[in-house]
């Protein structure tokens, strides 16, 4: 039987983990459960540790561009608070309800990652509870700080396998006075690579360069942020560089959303920007209608494969994709797959440094009580 507990403080969360440890029970942390289906199937769950009562922005210093947020706070609530001061946390999620802790733990990042990086680049301090119920911190409340190891980076993208994040302190950015989008059509993977390279080597300094494709054709759009006059001038420069078919306009409808539906196989691909043409392999392996969306500017894109596919077929598709991506210096991870096939496919592919990761897990959670089985190599 699974028991859900919703602590209201780090101390209470620690108590949950201590009690679970004493009783030999396993714990799965969760926020709004928007990505509960991501990663491997947890091998066994006795307690669901719900972070949503760890709620609220506990500190916001507009003059220092820093805020501290409790982990169960929905990211959109954080943005609403910061927006009142003309600031933002430059972190995005594809899920409306997603909590800050969940976004960090799964390593989600949206279009702004080109300019601002992902959660690990914005997190300057973290409080978390270890599997043994010890509350630990690293970093602090100032942006520039090299005292001690950066445990926040280790927790970002760790899927709850090393500890339960209870509070996070971020560096913030001012909301730009103006934003505009420059879009152009893309007809092939080779053309995508060329256009992305052109935008990136121009000096218009886009905040995001995203694509929305079916197979290898669709749209590339660059987000330009800055002053009103500056944005207009830069958008025109970008449009000239992209050629006659480029248009300047508002945010595309697909902007910042994943291409996959809940019952699709959700795939994340990372390729060197100079090797974006390798995305052509995707339509070769998965068919010409495969939906692809994401950050061409950083080479991290998402794809939706049909959930009706067999495990065997999916594994062979993944093998082909991984062979091409690995050769190019990239990777391919299955974020989510229908329960029917989820346990029969290799979700992660090759993982550099896996032996060291296992040793870290052994140190932090030797009894495998936290989110066991959800991460790379069965961690």
């Amino acid at each position, binding site marked *: 039987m699974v028991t859900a507990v919703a602590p209201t403080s780090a101390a209470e969360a620690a108590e949950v983990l201590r009690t679970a440890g004493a009783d030999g029970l396993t714990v799965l942390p969760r926020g709004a459960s928007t990505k509960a289906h991501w990663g491997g199937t947890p091998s066994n769950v006795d307690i669901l540790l719900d972070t949503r009562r760890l709620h609220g922005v506990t500190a916001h210093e507009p003059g220092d561009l820093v805020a501290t947020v409790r982990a169960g706070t929905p990211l959109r609530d954080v943005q609403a608070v910061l927006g009142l001061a003309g600031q933002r946390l430059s972190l995005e999620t594809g899920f409306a309800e997603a909590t800050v802790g969940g976004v960090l733990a799964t390593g989600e990042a949206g279009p702004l990652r080109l300019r601002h990086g992902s959660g690990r680049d914005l997190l300057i301090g973290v409080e978390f509870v270890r599997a043994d119920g010890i*509350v630990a911190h690293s970093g602090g409340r100032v942006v520039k700080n090299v005292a001690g190891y950066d445990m926040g980076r280790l927790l970002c993208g760790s899927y709850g396998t090393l500890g339960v994040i209870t509070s996070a302190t971020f560096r913030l950015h001012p909301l730009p006075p103006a934003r505009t989008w420059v879009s152009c059509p893309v007809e092939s993977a080779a053309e995508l690579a060329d256009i992305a390279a052109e935008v990136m080597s121009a000096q218009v300094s886009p905040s995001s360069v995203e694509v929305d494709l079916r197979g290898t054709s669709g749209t590339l759009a660059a987000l330009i942020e800055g002053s009103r006059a500056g944005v207009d001038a830069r958008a025109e420069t970008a449009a000239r560089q992209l050629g006659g078919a480029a248009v300047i306009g508002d945010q595309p409808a697909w902007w910042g959303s994943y291409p996959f539906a809940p019952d699709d196989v959700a795939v994340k691909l990372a390729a060197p920007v100079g090797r974006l043409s390798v995305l052509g392999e995707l339509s070769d392996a998965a068919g010409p209608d495969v939906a692809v969306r994401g950050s061409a500017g950083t080479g991290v894109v998402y794809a939706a494969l049909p959930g009706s596919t067999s495990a065997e077929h999916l594994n062979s598709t993944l093998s082909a994709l991984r062979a091409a991506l690995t050769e190019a210096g990239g990777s391919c991870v299955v974020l989510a797959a229908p329960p029917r096939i989820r346990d029969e496919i290799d979700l992660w592919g090759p993982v550099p440094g896996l032996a060291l990761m296992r040793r870290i897990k052994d140190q932090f959670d030797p009894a495998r009580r936290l989110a066991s089985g959800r991460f790379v190599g069965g961690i």
Partner: protein
Amino acid sequence: MRAASAPAAVDLLAARLRAELGDAAVVTEEAARRTYECDGLAHFRAVPALVVLPESAEQVQAVVRACRDEGIAWVARGAGTGLSGGALPLVDGVLIVTSRMRRIVQIDLSSGRAVLEPGVVNLAVSRAVSDDGWFYAPDPSSQLVCSIGGNVAENSGGAHCVKYGFTVHHVTGLEICTPDGELVWLGAGHAADAPGYDLVGVFVGSEGTLGIATKVVVRLLRQPEAVTTLLAAFRTVADAGAATSAIIAAGLTPAAAEIMDALAIEAAEQAVACSYPAGAGAVLIVELDGPAVEVAAEEATVRGLCDDAGAFEIRVAADAAERAEIWKGRKSAFAAVGRISPNYIVQDGVIPRTALAEVRAEIDALAVSAGIRVANVFHAGDGNLHPLVLYDETVPGEYESAQRVSGAILDLCVARGGSITGEHGVGVDKADKLPRMFTGDDLETMQLVRCAFDPTGLANPGKVFPTPRLCGEPPRPRAAGDLASQSHEQAGVLAW
């Protein structure tokens, strides 16, 4: 008591490494070893038992494996410019120097990456790609000589990290030699994400305690279309600080925002004749970069805000030469202080930017009550303070006073919710101060990572952590992780 039998083990090690790496890579002469006795923090000195200069990742691996087999601890060193004693050798340990690993292995502008050996000099990276219009952003002030491997160990910053971030934001992959002697690639390399824990993120800034970086993949950036550098002179540091706060509040992200106080200006004038405006109680240097149209508008905004905050003179560099002229005083500031004081301590603390004026006043009060002078150089954009605490070692008690003031400045930083180090690292210098920021549980948690990478504690023992943690692994023949093995020779404080 640790064996004075160490020499025999070291001799065996030296013989093995000569056979594996060649004679030229192994330094045993006492006089030659002594040249490595300290890094940029010269008041900690220890002559290493053996110095090895590998030429490749495989040779690094051979050294680390030999040390592992003999249970001898080791310290990695790049150019030796670090300011926290992170590369301080062990008298009974091996010093692994990366200065012969200087190849730029690959430059891939299409993906914005370079692959570097750890001994590559920081500035050499930007120089290699500048003709093509690209650069490597982290720019510690030692960038003419400091090495990329050292930058990785210390997570080095620089004047421009207020906009561009630190080394950790620009390293996407590493080949490391673990303390077990395995060569392992970590991270995404030429891509932006890889599956698994962010081991690159935790390795960068671990100060040589998790292994040695043998190759470093860095992010290259397109040069900005325009750069503008302003120098604004104010009557007081408080006014310069207020101008900085106003610039940030206006939604601008300058590429750099640096403040020097009157004493730091005086030193720079004597050293490099930088000709900053006469009578300035503080100068604020602001650099703006990006698309030309944005930079032009921001320059006007910054001028107006500096005027409002009481600037009595504003200069704008018209070209690269004038920009260099403005920066000359700031970049020479640390060394220049040697012109006005025989000795000084460079402090590195961080406060919330908005507390700058108050903390500066508190530092002044500390200095006055101790009867010594403090020159101040601030990375004002991110609240990183570099107070230079001046003293004369020939005057009895002055060094002790300077140390007390320097330590008290860190207390001010911690009291404000800041940090004991913004970019110089903890090293050996501040290991005892880390508990001011972190609980015992926090430090023990960090050392779980240490135990995963280095269960026998052979990699740079005695640095960063005030109390080493015993890892839950059977000890090797000679446990080298205990603090007793640190055995520094403290050779007094020298001018530098």
